[in-house]
């Protein structure tokens, strides 16, 4: 275990040295990447070194941009022009987007160095990082365990410090769960706060691109760069992210935390203990902790998966082997090509979700599943919005410690159950921040949920939690 200083602070004081930092990162990559498998695509070292030198030059000349020379990893479902974007699937193993995602455009403009594209569950469908066509990612805190998914590579590479910031995407916990399993910090933003343009879609109405880092302040820093209105995303909202420099930890006396009993009950003992430890320390400092019943908790997973699978079936219809061709095909007609590509190039979990998605949208089933799920979603959203108006919701991010590799693969319901705590924020469209609570014996994370556009509340409370846990900047290597 290691602890690093705040990147934001180094940048602010002008002591950040991109050339030195890159050499350290390249060393860590050479030592650990083969085992961790956090990246699907890494940029050539020479190109990275050149970029670092260029950044260094700008810093010395006093022309540094907000993220000048900062090492960033980008999840492989986020488009970077000319760099292949597989989304963890064989289906897109040759696809090179001809355009940058909006967030990538902003990263590049801010001077960040993109180190590579990170491993992920295929099309972001998975909670452990094991459903990648490019092999599973391992958890740097315990190489026998999963790092969580689907933003598995982004979390893992932060945990072994090959980068200082990362982009993930969160459809039902895909940023927060891996952040929880790797003792990193991750934010699922308010729906619409970050443009989705360039994000290879899984479930459009649920997902957001979000920042990942090793401390709340660094995360806020990245967030201030990527958040804000994009006129080319019709679901984007007018929104000004908080200023990362002026953020202060919240006065504990002013903290009101609401804790859903159902989630605590569903959590295994070590998780519960770590989380309750945090609660009592907060309370000791004067915070108000209230427990409440959330009887809708049993409905959130079925509703979430129904909607997500329906949208997935729709989004993935375009992959028919013709516009994204990348295999030796024996097909003689367009229809054969179609069947062949979808049979051979989609993994089992993707096929399962497409099949389920088609079912829930079919005539005769739509009302019973898709329409009903949409109703539950509205109900959950209304309840959650009612609560976050009054207080911040706090709960363990994952009900369990990071599972061992292979442990959750047998039974899909076991896999889906990992998301019990995270999907609510996606259904409700509210922001949710995950940050580490403890790392002994394994990482445990806490999730904070606030009102829409309430990221500032999350950051302030997050800074307070970091003061208590002392885990800001922690990494496995």
């Amino acid at each position, binding site marked *: 275990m290691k602890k690093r200083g705040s990147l934001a602070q180094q940048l602010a004081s002008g002591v950040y040295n991109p050339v030195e930092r890159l050499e350290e990162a390249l060393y860590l990559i050479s030592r650990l990447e083969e085992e961790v498998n956090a990246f699907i695509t890494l940029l050539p070292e020479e190109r990275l070194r050149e970029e670092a030198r260029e950044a260094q030059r700008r810093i010395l000349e006093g022309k540094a941009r907000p993220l000048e020379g900062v090492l960033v990893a980008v999840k492989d479902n986020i488009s970077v022009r000319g760099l292949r974007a597989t989304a963890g699937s064989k289906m897109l193993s040759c696809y090179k*987007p001809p355009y940058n995602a909006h967030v990538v455009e902003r990263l590049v403009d801010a001077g960040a160095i993109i180190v590579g594209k990170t491993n992920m569950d295929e099309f972001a469908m998975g909670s452990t990082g094991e459903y990648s066509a490019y092999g599973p990612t391992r958890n740097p805190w315990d190489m026998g365990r999963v790092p969580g998914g689907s933003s598995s590579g982004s979390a893992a590479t932060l945990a072994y410090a090959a980068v200082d910031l990362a982009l993930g995407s969160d459809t039902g916990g895909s940023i927060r769960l891996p952040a929880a399993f790797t003792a990193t910090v991750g934010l699922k933003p308010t729906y619409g706060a970050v443009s989705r343009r360039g994000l290879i879609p899984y479930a459009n109405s649920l997902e957001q691109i979000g920042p990942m880092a090793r401390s709340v302040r660094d995360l806020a820093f990245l967030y201030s760069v990527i958040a804000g209105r994009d*006129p080319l995303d*019709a679901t984007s909202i007018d929104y000004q992210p908080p200023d990362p420099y002026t953020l202060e930890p919240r006065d504990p006396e002013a903290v009101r935390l609401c804790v859903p009993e159902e989630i605590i009950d569903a959590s295994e003992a070590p998780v519960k203990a770590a989380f309750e430890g945090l609660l009592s320390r907060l309370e000791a400092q004067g915070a108000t902790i209230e427990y409440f019943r959330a009887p809708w908790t049993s409905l959130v997973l079925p509703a979430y998966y129904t909607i997500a699978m329906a949208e997935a079936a729709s989004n993935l219809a375009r992959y028919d082997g*013709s516009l994204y061709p990348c295999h030796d095909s024996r097909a003689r007609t367009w229809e054969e090509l179609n069947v062949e590509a979808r049979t051979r190039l989609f993994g089992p979990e993707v096929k399962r979700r497409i099949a389920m998605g088609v079912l829930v949208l079919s005539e005769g089933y739509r009302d019973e599943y898709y329409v009903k799920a949409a109703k539950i979603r509205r109900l959950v959203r209304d309840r959650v919005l009612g609560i976050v108006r009054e207080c911040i919701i706090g709960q363990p991010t994952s009900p369990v410690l990071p599972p061992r590799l292979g442990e959750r693969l047998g039974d899909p319901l076991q896999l889906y159950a990992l998301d019990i705590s995270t999907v609510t924020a996606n259904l409700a469209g509210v922001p949710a921040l995950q940050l580490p609570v403890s790392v002994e014996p394994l990482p445990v994370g806490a999730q904070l949920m606030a009102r829409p556009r309430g990221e500032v509340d999350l950051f302030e409370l997050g800074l307070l939690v970091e003061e208590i846990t002392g885990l800001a900047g922690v990494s496995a290597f």
Partner: protein
Amino acid sequence: MRPVIGLEVHVQLTGAGSKLFCGCKADYRGMPPNTNVCPVCLGLPGALPVPNRRAVVQALAAAMALKCRIPGAIVFTRKHYFYPDLPKNYQITQFERAGGAPVCTSGVLEYLDPAGWVWRRARIRRINLEEDPGRSVYPGGSIVSSEEVLVDYNRSGVPLLEIVTEPDIPSPRAARAFVEYLLLTLEYIGAVNPRLEGAFRVDANISLPGGERVEVKNIGSTLEVERALEYEYKRQRLILERGGRVERETRHWDAHRRMTKPLRHKEEEAEYLYMPDPDLPPVLTRPLLGEAEALVATSPRRLLDEITGDGVPLEVAWSIVQARPAASLYMEARGRVRDPRVLARLLGVDYKGALREAGRGPHDPSNWPPAETMARLARLVEEGEYPPEAVRGLIIPGLVRDPQASLETVLPEKAEGLEAVVDEVIRAYPRAVQDYMSGKRRALDYLVGQVIRRLGRRAVDPREVRRLLEERLGGG
């Protein structure tokens, strides 16, 4: 046996400027394949649709013109089917029963049927605003047999209005009139140039008493609408008269062989997996209605009423309204003439006819003279300055050749010294004079013709020539 006809008209909003959800051009004609494309209309992963405001406004204007019920918000839905020319394998459209909201429900179009000059009514079931797919070509035959598919996505994403009527149309001829009037209405909104190749397509369904409903697909022009339905009407009538059964089926119009052919016999209920498009929040209509209303201000119906209100016969008014530049000229010039009927005839009959003769399009404003020129010409005609023959034969062809020419340069010289020419002709054609004197009336026509010929490009009233000849030759 009277048929019952319903229509489904797909009209591209060629006037929308850009495609429905991206910045590529709405009019792709003349462009090399796959050059009018971007990540959005290619359906690349992560590309997001953003509704084109102008297309939505034009669709709303169409809904207003068709007296529709307009919803508070337009909700787009995805309709899924696998097809090579559909890059996302779903089409963004609207479907009410899956949470969508079309641009219009339950409207009505009153259309003029020039066969008999009667106004007819057809109820409109709904109007959808949707994306046009790309175009695919199968060099080896069909989608199931060809080893190659060539796809051009230039058309992909072009805004398309799908206008569906109730089965209210009484004849193939009326169906054609409906489509023509509908297109004219949309043209006045500025939404479409119906003369562009592929700007609209029609599917029609037709049934006869005692028979099932047959759908005819792939009709590409208004003339074909009438032909296809006429063919189908006769086919079905023959079956029924012979005691046969007309099955419910979908048929394909083969414009080349002028017949309908069965498409698929068993009509399967397709499963389109409709769902609201999560990338597109509902588009609120209220803030757009003012803009849409401005587009429907000059509808063909309003213009027809105004023009016929001036005493112009309906046929002439219809001819004017069918050519938008003529209608604009009429409206601009009508206040500057004494008798608007003269102006109407000049525009709708004489000038438009001369354009057709010269092979020039009546829809291109640059083929028409300025309003001032037309108004002055109309006044000259009213005052009897020039006989109709001179106007039709000399002045108007001159303007057609150069619409920007000043009237003076195309006006023929006044025929000074007419009497001298008449005397000349009498001397030159003694045989004809003799014939006339001996009672052959037709000889006078000949002499009149000779006088006019000798006058060349100078204006003359043949009645005046005739009067002079008779005077000289002593009555007759």
